């Protein structure tokens, strides 16, 4: 695999894969009050780019992802995915998504869970592709297991295989490994890095784990909360594919420390950026 050159990851003059422009998002509360989750947020993601959104919990990361997924509508501003509204992409079954909760159907086998997008789209289930995906996420031999019989990490693998089932234009991941223990989580990160190298799908990953963001992303977007804004955008220059050895790289650690510092105490850094 050739190392990716970084200019590919920069927004180009062509249409971005995901564009959020001037986004304001208010959630109504009781008695007419409203909470502003996002305030004039801009974000563009290029084709084939892997962007991680990093921030403390409650800062609006999931809201960004849910806007891109068409699960929420912006109060102000526009959301375009592949130049169209998310609703259109949904209708065309072009989005892949995985959440912190695996959201697997408990009564269905791993194979049937991965086949779900085919059934929802009313297409014939491509059995070969389903089995290939299960193999890709390291679950060959577990095709007929039900979620209850799988470990937490295995369930998330099934969820990711399901997200990839229809070869989506865009992959949206909201803390997919958030419920896993640290060791499993790191292993899953490396697996995802490998899978992403094979597929190169435009990916938006939401996480509060700094290592995870730096390990996987071409670009890390750091957010602050109340209301949610982009605090800093960090290009990650390390070449793909990134394996376990990257985590021992001093450059990696410098970056992680820098971003962790921003999460701890955003103000001084915000002043310099």
């Amino acid at each position, binding site marked *: 695999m050739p190392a990716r050159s970084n200019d590919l990851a920069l927004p180009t003059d062509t249409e971005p894969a995901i564009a959020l422009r001037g986004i304001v998002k208010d959630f109504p509360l009781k008695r007419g009050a409203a909470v502003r989750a996002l305030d004039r947020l801009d974000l563009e993601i290029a084709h084939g780019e892997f962007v991680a959104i990093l921030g403390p919990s409650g800062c609006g990361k999931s809201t960004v992802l849910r806007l891109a997924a068409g699960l929420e509508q912006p109060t102000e501003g526009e959301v375009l995915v592949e130049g169209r509204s998310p609703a259109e992409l*949904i209708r065309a079954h072009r989005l892949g*998504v995985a959440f912190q909760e695996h959201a697997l*159907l408990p009564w269905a086998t791993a194979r049937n869970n991965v086949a779900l997008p085919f059934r929802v789209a009313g297409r014939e289930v491509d059995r070969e592709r389903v089995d290939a995906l299960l193999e890709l996420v390291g679950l060959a031999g577990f095709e007929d297991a039900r979620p209850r019989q799988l470990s937490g990490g295995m369930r998330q693998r099934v969820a990711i295989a399901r997200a990839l089932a229809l070869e989506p234009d865009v992959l949206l991941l909201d803390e997919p490994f958030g419920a896993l223990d640290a060791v499993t989580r790191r292993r899953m990160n490396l697996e995802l890095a490998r899978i992403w190298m094979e597929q190169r799908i435009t990916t938006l990953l939401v996480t509060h784990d700094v290592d995870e963001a730096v390990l996987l992303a071409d670009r890390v977007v750091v957010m602050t909360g109340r209301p949610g804004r982009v605090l800093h955008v960090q290009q990650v220059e390390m070449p793909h594919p990134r394996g376990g050895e990257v985590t021992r790289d001093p450059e990696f650690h410098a970056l992680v420390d820098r971003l962790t510092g921003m999460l701890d105490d955003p103000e001084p850094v915000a002043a310099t950026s």
Partner: protein
Amino acid sequence: MSIDALSASRRVPVAQEGTARPSPARLLTRSLGRVLSRYWTVAAFVVAWQLWSWLTGYNQIVVPPPAMVFGDVLGNIGAYLPDLGWTLAMSAGGLVAGMALGTMIAVVVWSSRIVSGMMTPVALVMRSVPVVAMIPVLARVFGYGWFTVLVITTVVSFFPAFVLVGSRLRAAPQATSDLMAVLGASRSTVLRLLLLPHAVPGLLVAFRLTAPTAVLAAMLAEYLMGGRGLGTLFAQSVSFHEVGRAWGAALVATVVSVACFVAARAVERRGTVRFS
């Protein structure tokens, strides 16, 4: 509590796999102890019954001794079986029809805001209406006959299924519903692939709650209207002062109801594991 007991009894053999197996005698005493701890009340009940019939001086018109009642049931089982079969058929038929109807109406209510808004108060009223007490009204409307018994068991079985399936339809996990939305699932696809399977445990709870009630309702209807079935057998024995037969019918009804309850609970447990 009973679920704990269940898993505990499953855990025991696993824990002992590596070590020496307990002797059959110890296994026997242990399971005997377990049976005793759970069913001592039933045994105490039979003993109290015996004592009581003894105290009333074996006046069989008042309280027939257990031996006489058990004897009649076991000795003249042929006198009970046809009526028992009839009552069970009525209960089962009504159970299936009522639960199917309840599920269907729950889906209709789910699919329409207007219907659901209109059904909410109606459901409140129906929830507190003593349906079994309405047997005389249903008997008047539908006539004295097996069809009315079927209507009554259907009505009795309808409501729990309607309520419990309805609440499961509205309580699918948020993340899974979001996933369906992102995958671009239509409402009917969501219903078919997610909500109906998700509602199965609700239907199973309804089944457990309803099965004994359906049997009871069938017998009460038969008791009031005559015709065939255990309820009629009971009513006739009472009016002909066949005390042993009357108590025998009551005993058979009890055993059948308890068996229905236990069977329905077992079905519910298995199904719930499968669907959640």
